[in-house]
């Protein structure tokens, strides 16, 4: 019998679980193997020592302390209780929770760091499209084809049947808008509905809005962009109006360019309404406008058409873009209003002179 098997029986022999035959075999091996005999003696001693270990008395005050702890637990604030509990949770629970929290934090940081450059880019974008009219611009560009169509129709109808009532009806809401842009009393005099609020005194923007209310128009918010949108939408439902245009005239010699511009305007039967520095406002017959534009293109090294600041006017419906109007001031708007009243089909062109 080998030593390993004999040593595996130590506990069984101690517990008296070996059969008589097994015990006999075991003891025969021990008598012949001093190594296993010594091992068994050590084993026996260990078990005897283990069994000799007595019981330990419970410390005094165990029960009162226990009740005290139970009372404390009963009266513990739930928040504090749960806070303390975390430390007693097993790692198998705590580690996944901590790992999940870490992953969440990493994602949050990545998300934030990705978002930051976008935030930083915004001012740049804003600078690129720094015009406060950019929104309005878009809105008007979207509406351009429809407006073009309406204008064409209006031109046709006005040419064929110039009915005074139609004219007034068409004019009134537009005049209301005009009041928003300018405080031209003459223009307001042309529209009966618009006269009501304050025909004599200059009208502020808010007053103009009020006047529109009086005219039965739904009040938009006082924000410029929204007012403009409201105007555009309103215009759609009224009469013809052409998309606004701006012509940038690039010239090398300023004086020469100005004189050439004046000549051109006169040549095409138009007149220069205002001239403020490099900004010119010209009134031209609609029929000769395209020819005028071509001539102007010849003058200019490059002409940029920006359908924004200048609007074509048809059938007396003269409309100014609000931003442009503010810059131009009273005189200009008075002039343009006069033109609107006097002519049936004229085009107002806003020309910007750029010296190169």
């Amino acid at each position, binding site marked *: 019998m080998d030593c390993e098997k004999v*040593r*595996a029986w*130590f*506990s*069984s022999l101690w517990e008296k679980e070996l059969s008589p035959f097994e015990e006999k075999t075991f003891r025969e091996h021990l008598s012949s193997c001093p190594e296993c005999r010594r091992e068994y003696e*050590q*084993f026996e001693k*260990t*078990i005897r*020592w*283990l*069994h*000799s*270990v*007595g*019981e*330990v*008395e*419970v*410390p005094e005050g*165990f*029960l009162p*302390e*226990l009740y005290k*702890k*139970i009372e404390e*637990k009963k009266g513990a604030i739930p928040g504090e209780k749960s806070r303390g509990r975390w*430390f*007693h949770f*097993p*790692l198998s629970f705590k580690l996944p929770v901590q790992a999940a929290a870490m992953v969440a934090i990493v994602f949050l940081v990545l998300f934030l760091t990705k978002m930051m450059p976008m935030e930083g880019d915004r001012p740049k974008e804003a600078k690129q499209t720094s015009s406060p009219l950019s929104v309005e611009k878009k809105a008007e560009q979207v509406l351009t084809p429809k407006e073009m169509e309406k204008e064409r129709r209006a031109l046709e109808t006005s040419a064929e049947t110039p009915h005074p009532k139609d004219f007034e009806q068409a004019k009134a809401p537009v005049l209301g808008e005009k009041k928003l842009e300018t405080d031209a009393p003459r223009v307001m005099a042309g529209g009966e509905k618009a006269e009501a609020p304050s025909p004599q005194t200059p009208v502020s923007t808010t007053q103009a809005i009020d006047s529109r209310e009086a005219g039965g128009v739904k009040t938009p918010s006082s924000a410029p962009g929204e007012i403009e949108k409201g105007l555009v939408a309103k215009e759609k439902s009224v009469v013809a109006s052409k998309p606004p245009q701006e012509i940038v005239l690039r010239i090398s010699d300023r004086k020469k360019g100005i004189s050439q511009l004046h000549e051109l305007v006169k040549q095409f039967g138009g007149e220069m309404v205002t001239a403020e520095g490099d900004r010119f406002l010209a009134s031209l017959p609609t029929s000769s406008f395209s020819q005028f534009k071509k001539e102007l293109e010849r003058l200019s090294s490059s002409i940029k058409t920006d359908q924004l600041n200048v609007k074509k006017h048809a059938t007396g419906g003269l409309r100014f873009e609000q931003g442009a109007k503010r810059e131009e001031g009273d005189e200009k708007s008075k002039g343009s209003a006069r033109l609107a009243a006097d002519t049936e089909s004229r085009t107002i062109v806003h020309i910007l002179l750029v010296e190169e």
Partner: protein
Amino acid sequence: MMKTSPKIQKEVIENCKAGDERAFTEIVLQRQKKVFNIAYRMLGNSEEARDLAQEVFISVFESIKDLKEEIKFDAWLTQITLNHCRNRWKYLKRRQYFSSDSLDDPIETEDGSVPRAIYDPSDNPEILLEKKMIQQLIQRGLLKLKEDQRELLVLRDLQGYSYEEMGETLGLPEGTIKSKLHRARMDLKEVLERSTH
């Protein structure tokens, strides 16, 4: 080796489940020694063992209503005790509590709060000293073993659990318990041999 405690009456457990504090007190008084001794041998520190034993009874107080079979109360109580011991062991080990110097020696602590072992008054001083040394050696040896080995030795050789009770408590087959217990005894023998030579 401890004698097996008499079974707690079924009525007492039922009353405790119903919220009777006297029944709970009776259970504590009947089982506090066993719980405290298991904790003490598993942790080797009387302060920790006292605190842990109290935690065990708080757990009993809080969850005895969930105990379905009253007859298995002792196995259930031992399971709670061992679970608390495992958690406390991990907690203390992480804080490097169990360095060789921090071991709570049941004989030699100075503050006098160390639990007294029950000695035979007929023992003469030499035998008494020997017994003290043996107890010290065993406790140190136990703490050097693996936790599951220590559990087996404490339950079987110190608390006198039957294999059936151990199987019920540890959820292991009897054969597995016997072979593991033998391995634990052999390892303790090795530890003691190393420490005495």
